[in-house]
C-alpha cells in the first residue's frame, strides 16, 4: 500500500497517502499505515544529514512507535582499563549484530512496552540481539552494553526520542501519525527499515514496515569508488594534489612578499 513514490514527487506521495488512508478506513481502521517522504535519501557533496517526513495511520486510541533500523555488522572495539594506575586500551571486545543506525520514537511520553509478549523494540530488545564477546567477564556484559550504547549515542547514530510523534484524529475514526526522522550526517549509505507499530493497553495492534534507502551519489560516490577500487591510483592522486598545492602556495608567496 505504500506507493513507490520518489524524492520530489510530493503530489504522488500525498495521493498514495490519501489512498492508503482510504483503504485503511475500508478495513475498519485496523491496520497501521506508513508513508515516508522521501523514501530515498541521497548523500551528495554537501550532505549534512536529512529529514525524512513520516506519515501514518493507526487505530484510534493506540500509541504509535516508530523504529528505524540499519543493516547489522560486527564491530571490534577497544576496551579501556587501568594498567599500573594509568588508563589505556587493555583488550578488544567483539560486538556482533550492531545496527548501523537505531532510532526509536513514540507518540506517548514514554516508549510503550508490551505486557503479554517481549517488547520487540527499545534498548532491552537491542540488548538481546547485540552480542558482546572477547576480553570481558560474564558479569560485565550489562555494563559494557551500556558503554556500547553511550558510544553510539555520542556518535548520534542511536537515539531514543519518546513523545516526538504527533497524533491527530483521522476522518475515518482512526489516528493520524505525523513525525520526522532526522538522519544524522554520519548515517552510512545502505538500506533501512522503518517500522510503525500501534500499541494499545500493552498489546500490539498492528505493524507496518516501509523501506528507506540512503545512497551516495555524485562526487562522494565517485571518490569512494576510486578509493576502494583503485587504491594505488587514489593514493598517488592524493600525493600529487598535495605536492602541487604546496608548490603553488610557495610560488604565490614568493611573488607576493619578496618581489
Amino acid at each position, binding site marked *: 500500500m505504500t506507493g513507490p513514490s520518489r524524492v520530489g514527487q510530493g503530489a504522488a506521495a500525498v495521493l498514495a497517502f490519501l489512498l492508503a488512508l482510504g483503504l485503511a478506513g475500508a478495513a475498519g481502521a485496523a491496520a497501521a499505515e506508513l508513508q515516508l517522504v522521501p523514501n530515498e535519501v541521497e*548523500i*551528495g*557533496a*554537501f*550532505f*549534512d*544529514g536529512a529529514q525524512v517526513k513520516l506519515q501514518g495511520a493507526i487505530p484510534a486510541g493506540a500509541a504509535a512507535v516508530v523504529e528505524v533500523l540499519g543493516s547489522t555488522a560486527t*564491530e*571490534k*572495539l*577497544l*576496551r*579501556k*582499563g587501568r594498567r*599500573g*594506575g*594509568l*588508563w*589505556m*586500551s*587493555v*583488550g*578488544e*571486545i567483539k560486538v556482533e549484530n550492531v545496527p548501523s543506525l537505531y532510532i526509536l520514537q513514540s507518540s506517548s511520553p514514554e516508549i510503550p512496552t508490551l505486557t503479554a509478549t517481549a517488547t520487540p523494540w527499545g534498548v532491552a530488545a537491542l540488548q538481546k540481539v547485540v552480542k558482546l564477546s572477547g576480553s570481558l567477564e560474564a558479569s560485565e556484559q550489562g555494563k*559494557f552494553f551500556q*558503554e*556500547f550504547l553511550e*558510544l553510539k549515542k*555520542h*556518535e548520534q547514530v542511536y537515539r531514543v526520542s519518546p513523545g516526538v510523534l504527533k497524533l491527530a484524529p483521522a476522518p475515518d475514526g482512526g489516528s493520524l501519525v505525523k513525525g520526522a526522522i532526522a538522519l544524522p*550526517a*554520519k548515517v*552510512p549509505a545502505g538500506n533501512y527499515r522503518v517500522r510503525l507499530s500501534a500499541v494499545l493497553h500493552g498489546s500490539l495492534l498492528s505493524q507496518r514496515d516501509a523501506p528507506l534507502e540512503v545512497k*551516495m551519489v555524485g*562526487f*562522494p*560516490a565517485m*571518490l*569512494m569508488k576510486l*578509493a*576502494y577500487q583503485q*587504491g*594505488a591510483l*587514489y*593514493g*598517488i*592522486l*592524493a*600525493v600529487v*594534489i*598535495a*605536492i602541487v*598545492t*604546496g*608548490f*603553488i*602556495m*610557495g610560488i604565490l*608567496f*614568493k611573488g607576493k612578499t619578496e618581489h
Partner: protein
Amino acid sequence: MWNLYLPIAGTSINILLLFGLGGLVGFLSGLFGVGGGFLMTPLLLMAGIPSTVAAASDSNQIVAASTSGTYAHWRMGNVDFKMGFLLLVGGVLGGTVGVQIIKILRAMGNADFVIKITYVLMLGIVGFYMFMESLQALRKKGVVEPKRGEPGKVSIYVRMIQALPWQMRFEKSGVTFSVLLPLILGVMVGILAAIMGVGGGFVMVPVMVYMLRMPMHVVVGTSLFQILFTCINVTVMQSITNHNVDLVLAVILLIGSTLGAQIGAKLSRRLHADQLKILLASIVLLVMVQILFSLILTPGQLLAYKGGH
C-alpha cells in the same frame, strides 16, 4: 552551507573549521619543522572524524605542508639535502623495524602500555631538555651560537662519533662526521616514530639540534624535507591497504596548512634559534601533560573504536 560531506570519513564538517585547523598546524610546521600530526590527529578526533581516517588524511595534508615548507626553506638555503637523505634512509629502515616491534607487542597484549609510556617519556625528556637548554641560552645572550664547538671539554659522545669510519663534510650544516651517525640516528627515530604512530618530527628536530649539532634554521628545513618523503609513503600505503585517506578532508586541510607553512617559515627566519626552541619545547611539554592527564583521569567512555594512536 559551509558544511561539506567527507565520503571516506562518512560525516560532514564545517569548511571554515577545517581550514583554520589546517592553517594552525601548517604554521607550526613551517615554524618548527615538525609535521604536526601529534596535534592534528587529536583535533580531528574532537571534530568527529574516525581516528584511522584522521591519521591517514593528516599524513596527506603533511605532504602539502612540508612541500610548501621545504620549498620556502630551500629558497632561504636552509635545507641540507645530504643529511636529510641519510636520515631518511635510516628512518625508513627504523620504521620497518618499529612496525615489527609493534606487531610483537600487540601479540603479547601490552602494545598500548608501551606506546603510551614511550610517548610520555619521549615528549617529557625532549621537551624538558630543550626547554632548560634554551632557557639557559636565552639568559646569557650573546654567547649562544659559539657554544657548539666547546674545544676544552671533549665528551664521550664526541669521542665516540669521531672514532666512526667514513667521515664526511656536511656543508649546509657546517658539521663533519661519519656517514653512519645520521643513518643510526635515523633508524632510532624511525623505530620510535613507528611505535608511537607519528611522523617523528618532534623527536627528529631535537636529535638534529643536539646530537648532530646542526644550526636550528637548517634543522627546520631539513626536517621538513625528510617528513615530506615519510608522509608520501604513508599516504600511498594507507590508500592501498586501508582506504583511509579522505581526499576532501585532506584538500581543505592542506589549503590551510600550505598557507600556514609559508607564514611559519617566514616567522622562523625572524625568530632567534633559542626562541624557536623554547616555543617548540613548550608545545611538546603541553602535549605531554595532556596525554598524561588522559592516562590518569577516568575516561568518559570505556569503549573506543580502533585506530589512531
